[in-house]
């Protein structure tokens, strides 16, 4: 089964409408919870007024004073409150909650609550944040800083014949999972609470709630999750706390599901990033001699996962290119805006857009072909990355060669693709972009070896059940884990099942994040299956040549046999203070080719064709892996062109509706093809490597290069929407 295309196990339930997402689960006597949010970015909260003429008898009302434990959603630092007590730090910040027996009544009651505040000066521009007299976090508003030093950049710049500098900007992006955020809290018989809903990381919630509720009598259960992309990594913790507080005070089951406008307004987005690149280049050979990078990320008002996003941005910022002298510094700063957070790629798409655009700038200024410049500088096997990690395999070359071959076979003017056939007469210009990228999967450095993810496998009757804290949000984990176990045990997949994703029953396998689930947790699940074979042998006595299925048939004992495994560790050696060593267990590699037409009158981009060649180790279910590459690439094309989070004067997203936040439709998508290298990765289960985020890393830069190829227009900022393109076209024609 492993290594072959196979149908996902949750498919039949999903195509028949039987899969139960949170709002589909029938719950008797369910109350509805809603949130009262701030409408200003920075203020002193003076009071929360409830209309005395409204009937509050059937409403449960919760403020910060109702929190039994700490008023803090703990993740990296204890800075984010569950509910505002004194100081409002961003628009749409939760201040109070209410629940009622019906959604209509809850929404009506919310209209009868007024927040009184004394407005303060807000700090909204992240470039003004560091050291600003308006303090949001610590002494200087810097949540996190990460720095890499490699070689001697001072000497390299001092001797440089040619120095090229550039600035690049990447914007917010909304994950836009189709199922909005939702959590339900239900009283347990023992006085505790069961939290269930749409989430990526049940144990994040488990770890955050204890401090807030002041007790540990709760469990967290993931329900079928309709997309997440990072958006349901940290946010469900605060939503769970809200639902739990309403549940505790009312004694009722309370469901909170955001409408789309509230979801877009209040929840996390991709961090905007300003990047400055300064490089020393040999003008004759095109070789990179020194790279000096500074990245500045907008974290929003609270820290959340921002330090890790910053770190990943820094670690990828020099791109898949060899350079002997590198300095990279990244800083994550605070603003009075809703916190930004996890989103597929987690900092890497930001810095990879910048390095790829910078390479194109070098090519432009030194009259190199952009492809040739990449040929010259691309990593080779045995070379060192900026952290000193030695690359073990010639994989950058392999994926890049595939893109070159594809380009040769399919000239950009050929129309051998299937995409939207637009009959509108247009003045079009065709362009092609080709870029290359890398993505480290798993926790940074030796983080996985320290964390030691755990999972269980249980023989129960004739079937085997998998217990893990990792979840399926659409990427297919609930199919690939059973396939791993079935192949390891030699059982048909019909006899292998996922156990409930319930923290009361599963050990902590870490967050479903960082492209780590198949590569790291998959290895743990495989080890657990191997341990099960040993445990069964030990129980009933081994006989030669007997299969696991035969042993199961021979077993008399009917008690469930459950075993645990933990991540055995990998060879990564990492100095987290100096940022030296193996930044990840390994990198995965990708090249992207995009063909597009630019409408020279409207500035629209018509995506025609997108080719990706990727090293993702051995693909356990190639069809599913292709689906990740195709979906991730289109999400990145949306970021590059149509998805524009418009931030208003108060720091709020103004276009918080699907009518004006434009994600790609089937008409916008290019014809996509994916070339998978299938080269085994030694530490991954059956040779698999993490890949879920990598598809988001490169397409935006490829689009920018293709626009330049088509029109000569240089765009170094996202989104490269029709307005931006037309403005450049007009500016050029005025000059002429």
């Amino acid at each position, binding site marked *: 089964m492993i290594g072959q295309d196979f149908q996902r196990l949750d498919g039949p339930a999903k195509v028949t*409408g039987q899969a139960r997402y949170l709002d589909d689960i029938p719950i008797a006597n369910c109350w509805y919870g809603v949130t009262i949010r701030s409408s200003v970015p920075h203020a002193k909260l003076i009071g929360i007024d409830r209309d005395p003429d409204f009937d509050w008898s059937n409403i449960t009302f919760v403020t910060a004073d109702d929190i039994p434990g700490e008023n803090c959603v703990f993740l990296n630092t204890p800075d984010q409150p569950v509910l505002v007590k004194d100081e409002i730090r961003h628009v749409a910040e939760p201040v109070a909650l209410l629940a009622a027996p019906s959604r209509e009544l809850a929404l009506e009651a919310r209209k009868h609550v007024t927040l009184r505040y004394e407005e303060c000066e807000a700090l909204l521009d992240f470039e003004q944040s560091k050291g600003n007299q308006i303090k949001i976090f610590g002494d200087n508003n810097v949540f996190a800083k990460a720095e890499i030093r490699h070689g001697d950049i001072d000497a390299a710049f001092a001797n440089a014949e040619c120095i090229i500098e550039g600035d690049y900007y990447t914007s917010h992006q909304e994950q836009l999972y189709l*199922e909005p955020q939702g959590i339900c809290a239900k009283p347990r018989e023992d006085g505790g609470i069961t939290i269930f809903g749409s989430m990526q990381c049940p144990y994040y919630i488990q770890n955050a709630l204890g401090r807030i509720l002041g007790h540990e009598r709760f469990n967290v259960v993931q329900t079928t999750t*309709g997309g997440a992309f990072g958006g349901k990594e940290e946010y469900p913790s605060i939503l769970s706390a809200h639902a739990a507080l309403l549940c505790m005070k009312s004694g009722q089951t309370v469901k909170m599901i955001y409408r789309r406008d509230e979801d877009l307004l209040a929840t996390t987005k991709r961090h905007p990033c300003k990047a400055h690149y300064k490089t020393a280049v040999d003008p004759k050979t095109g070789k990179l001699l020194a790279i000096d990078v500074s990245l500045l990320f907008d974290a929003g008002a609270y820290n959340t996962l921002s330090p890790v996003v910053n770190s990943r941005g820094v670690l990828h910022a020099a791109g898949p290119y060899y350079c002997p002298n590198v300095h990279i510094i990244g800083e994550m700063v605070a603003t009075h805006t809703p916190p930004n957070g996890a989103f597929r790629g987690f900092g890497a798409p930001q810095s990879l857009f910048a390095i790829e655009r910078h390479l194109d700038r070098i090519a432009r200024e030194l009259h190199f072909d952009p492809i040739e410049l990449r040929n010259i500088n691309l990593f080779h096997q045995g070379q060192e990355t900026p952290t000193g990690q030695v690359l073990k395999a010639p994989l950058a070359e392999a994926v890049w060669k595939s893109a070159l071959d594809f380009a040769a076979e399919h000239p950009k003017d050929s129309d051998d693709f299937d995409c939207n056939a637009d009959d509108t007469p247009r003045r079009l210009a065709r362009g092609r972009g080709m870029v290359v990228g890398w993505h480290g999967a798993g926790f940074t450095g030796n983080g996985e070896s320290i964390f030691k993810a755990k999972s269980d496998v249980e023989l129960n009757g004739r079937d085997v059940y998998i217990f893990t804290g990792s979840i399926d949000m*659409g990427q297919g984990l609930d199919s690939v884990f059973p396939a791993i176990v079935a192949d390891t045990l030699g059982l048909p997949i019909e006899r292998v099942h996922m156990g409930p994703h319930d923290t009361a029953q599963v050990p902590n396998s870490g967050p479903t994040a960082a492209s780590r689930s198949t590569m790291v947790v998959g290895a743990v699940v495989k080890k657990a299956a191997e341990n099960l074979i040993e445990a069964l042998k030990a129980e009933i006595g081994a006989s030669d040549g007997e299969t696991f299925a035969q042993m199961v048939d021979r077993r008399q004992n009917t008690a469930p046999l459950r075993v645990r495994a933990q991540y055995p560790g990998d060879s990564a050696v990492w100095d987290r203070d100096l940022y030296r060593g193996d930044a990840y267990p390994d990198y995965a590699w990708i090249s992207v080719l995009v063909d597009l037409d630019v409408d020279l009158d409207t500035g629209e981009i018509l995506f025609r064709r997108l080719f990706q060649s990727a090293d993702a180790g051995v693909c356990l279910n190639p*069809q599913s892996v292709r689906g990740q590459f195709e979906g991730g690439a289109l999400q990145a094309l949306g970021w590059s062109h149509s998805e524009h989070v418009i931030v208003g004067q108060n720091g709020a997203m103004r276009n918080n509706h*699907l009518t004006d936040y434009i994600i790609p439709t*089937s008409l916008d998508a290019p014809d*996509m093809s994916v070339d998978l290298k299938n080269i085994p990765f030694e530490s991954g289960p059956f040779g698999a490597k993490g890949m879920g985020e990598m598809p988001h890393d490169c397409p935006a830069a490829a689009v920018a290069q293709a626009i330049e190829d088509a029109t000569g227009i240089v765009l170094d900022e996202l989104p490269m929407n029709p307005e931006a393109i037309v403005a450049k076209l007009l500016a050029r024609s005025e000059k002429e």
Partner: protein
Amino acid sequence: MRIQFELNGQPVEIDQPPMARLVDVLRIELGLTGTKEGCGEGECGACTVLMNGEAVNSCLLPICQVQGASITTIEGLGQMADHPMQKSFLEHGAVQCGFCTPGLILSSTAFLKENPNPTRAEIRRALAGNLCRCTGYQKIINAVYDEAFAKGEEK
């Protein structure tokens, strides 16, 4: 008001305020939760159902307009995943998180009834009202195209 209509081949009679949204009636009153709500403003298509064979957004449809109509939801297409379009989506890996899937399957089914021999470009146009954030649409378009082709062979 009293509303009578046909739902998945069965007559239904219910008492609802005339402006109640069809999506709420289906999901809350009738327990048919295969129809999803993704945006509530007719942009995402997750709430797509068939009305007299045509794909409509049930979040935009007041129940009074359903009087006398025939409505098909994903539950009416086949509970055994044996409808050809359901099978084609499964075979092609056109399902990921699945939230858009019922709507896309219904839109695709209605479209192929109208246009049994479509080009890929026509499929793209027909499905433009159904957003999917997971797949990039490639496998969905393949699923619909191959299903049309398979049907064509049977004829």
